[in-house]
């Protein structure tokens, strides 16, 4: 009576930790199989062959692979026409070599990525695939400006925003106008705090903290490189150069919500929402304004967090994360980052991450994130067959 389940189709970087972990997760329920498609191949051939109709399709991050990164930069070359943002023609991209930590023109990369996603969507919609995350929603989540607008329209609590920032002078004038003297500047298309700058203004003084350093390329332009530890800046002219360099990538400004502390560190919370419900919850504690684990933050569990902030506050964080994901109804999962302010005025969503479900060995009710995703799609399939479709 029940048709054999179509294999889950997955677009990923073969051999990456994400691919390996997802494969392991799929092997647990015995009757599921997996067909992998490589990002590199799909970008090369422009095609992703899916035989089965009605299969689940998962798109994973194209990150951490130089060939794929370069292919996306090439693909974005013709689309990156806006002169405000850094770009490079395809021939020049072709000469670039891998340079770990270097932030390549991220707007161009994003445009290539978005184009690849929309091509994929058009071709696979014919096969009636069931998207684990709608490609269009992935591209919105990978654009912090668009994601903020969507969340603001839905009434999700997010920090006060300053919009797209042209450069240092624009940022400072907006800060003065709004009297917002502590601001986060974020790349619209950056992940893991890449390119982020925290800026404080006060009584003629300025200070900034960044996750990247400035370098000069062989061609003579300034570029950014991710740093292993955050950097403090006190000089006006350096901060101006830094902010201008960040804004060349397309950047937004938003209020630097004073994060509540814990163990003499500040913290934020990553909540993975799967199937509309908050599942994995992890607190990240940091001595610096940035709470990313690769920048030295440490983790605390959901139980520890609940104990620390109380049941009510914990629940309201989970609810706010779920509300944020209602802005992405075609996405089975997403990672939502939230902060509690020092004044404890309720949680605020500072980010949604399309690929925010990589939390190996963090279990919620016995399952890791990928296990939850599989469970929820199995439930959805069961519902569909029960209602006769």
């Amino acid at each position, binding site marked *: 009576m029940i048709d054999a389940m179509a294999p889950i189709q997955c677009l990923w970087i073969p051999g990456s930790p994400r691919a390996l972990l997802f494969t392991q997760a799929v092997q647990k329920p015995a009757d599921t199989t997996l067909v992998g498609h490589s990002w590199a191949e799909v970008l090369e051939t422009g095609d992703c062959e899916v035989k089965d109709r009605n299969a689940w399709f998962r798109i994973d991050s194209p990150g951490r692979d130089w060939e794929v990164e370069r292919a996306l930069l090439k693909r974005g070359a013709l689309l990156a026409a806006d002169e405000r943002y850094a770009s490079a023609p395809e021939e020049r991209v072709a000469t670039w070599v891998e340079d770990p930590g270097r932030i390549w023109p991220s707007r161009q990369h994003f445009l290539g990525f978005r184009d690849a996603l929309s091509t994929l969507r058009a071709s696979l919609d014919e096969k009636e695939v069931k998207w684990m995350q709608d490609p269009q929603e992935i591209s919105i989540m990978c654009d912090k400006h668009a994601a903020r607008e969507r969340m603001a329209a839905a009434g999700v609590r997010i920090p*006060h925003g300053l919009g797209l920032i042209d450069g240092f002078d624009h940022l400072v004038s907006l800060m003065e106008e709004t*009297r*917002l*003297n*502590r601001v986060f500047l974020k790349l619209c298309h950056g992940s893991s705090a890449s390119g982020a700058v925290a800026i*404080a*203004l*006060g*009584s003629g*003084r300025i*200070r900034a903290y960044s996750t990247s350093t400035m370098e000069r390329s062989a061609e003579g332009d300034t570029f950014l490189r991710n740093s292993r530890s955050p950097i*403090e800046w006190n000089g006006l002219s350096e901060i101006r150069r830094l902010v201008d360099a960040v804004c060349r990538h397309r950047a937004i400004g938003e*209020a*630097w919500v*004073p*994060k*509540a*502390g*814990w*163990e*003499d*560190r*500040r913290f934020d919370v990553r909540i993975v929402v799967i199937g509309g419900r908050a599942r994995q919850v992890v607190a990240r504690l940091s*001595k610096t*304004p940035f709470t990313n684990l690769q920048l030295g933050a440490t983790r605390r569990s959901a139980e520890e967090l609940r104990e620390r902030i109380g049941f009510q506050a914990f629940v309201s964080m989970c609810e706010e994360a779920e509300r944020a994901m209602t802005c992405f109804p075609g996405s089975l999962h997403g990672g939502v980052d939230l902060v509690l*302010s*020092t*004044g*404890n*005025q309720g949680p605020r969503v500072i980010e949604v991450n399309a690929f925010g479900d990589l939390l190996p060995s963090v279990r919620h009710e016995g399952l890791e994130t990928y296990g939850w995703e599989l469970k929820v799609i199995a439930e959805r399939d069961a519902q569909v067959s029960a209602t006769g479709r």
Partner: protein
Amino acid sequence: MINENLTSWLGHPVEDYLPGQQINPQVYYRFRVDWDTEVSVIEMMAAFTADPSAADITGLVVGAWFGDDSGASSEEIVQLLVGARERLPKLEAIFFGDVISEENEISWIQQSDMSPLFAAYPGLKHFVVRGGNDLGLGSNLHLGSLKSLTVQTGGMERATLDQALSLDLPALERLELWLGTDGYGWTGEVSQLKPLFDDTLFPNLRHLGLRNSEVADAIAEALCAAPIVDRIDSLDLSLGTLTDKGGTALANCPRLKRLKDLDLHHHFMSESVMKGLAAEFPGVNLADRQDLDKYGPYVAIGE
């Protein structure tokens, strides 16, 4: 500490005060605002002190008072507290500046002269102030009940250190000074500490903290010959730039062996010097060892 607001102090819970709320005399209320809070800290504190139940509170905490102007001075708050002295007859503990690095750069906190507070509250037992800019502590003031004094700065000015040491504090048991770094305002010298080290100032001192200092090595060396260490039970040189130089001096100082507590956490000492210290002082806190890198040693709180 610097990244986390108080949740309790001196055994009392610390809670944010919301105007109009009922006052629980056991709580130490904190007064603070965000950039978009509609009432000011002054208005909050005025509402608080106008409530007759405030008469029973024994401690309070001044939090981020500056709203959207990180450089706004604390002077008005001092004035308000001075004016409210008859409404706060039992007040004996003030934490002035529970401001964490997410709320303001520590070196930007704009303090003011605290001496009017000391005059208005002669029964004060515990006083903490954070932020060194324009901080005044008065000269030669007598505070007969003060048991603990803590001054936390990213960089203490010479004059502030002189003022702290000029206070007449016969009951003082705990003194903690965060001296900081010259990048953020430290203009003092170790020689200013001589009267303190000679034990001529505070006859009841039990605990001495000279923390967050970029002259930690020199302080350690000076302490080895200082009569004060024969009086105190507990010494805290944490958060500073202590290296092998200072650590070796401490390890080779027999008179320090009577200390019950020695806190050196956040330091730049080598494994071998740490071993020597651990052998001399069982229980010494050597946590949070930092690597000497190209930037040289740095204090824990200097921003």
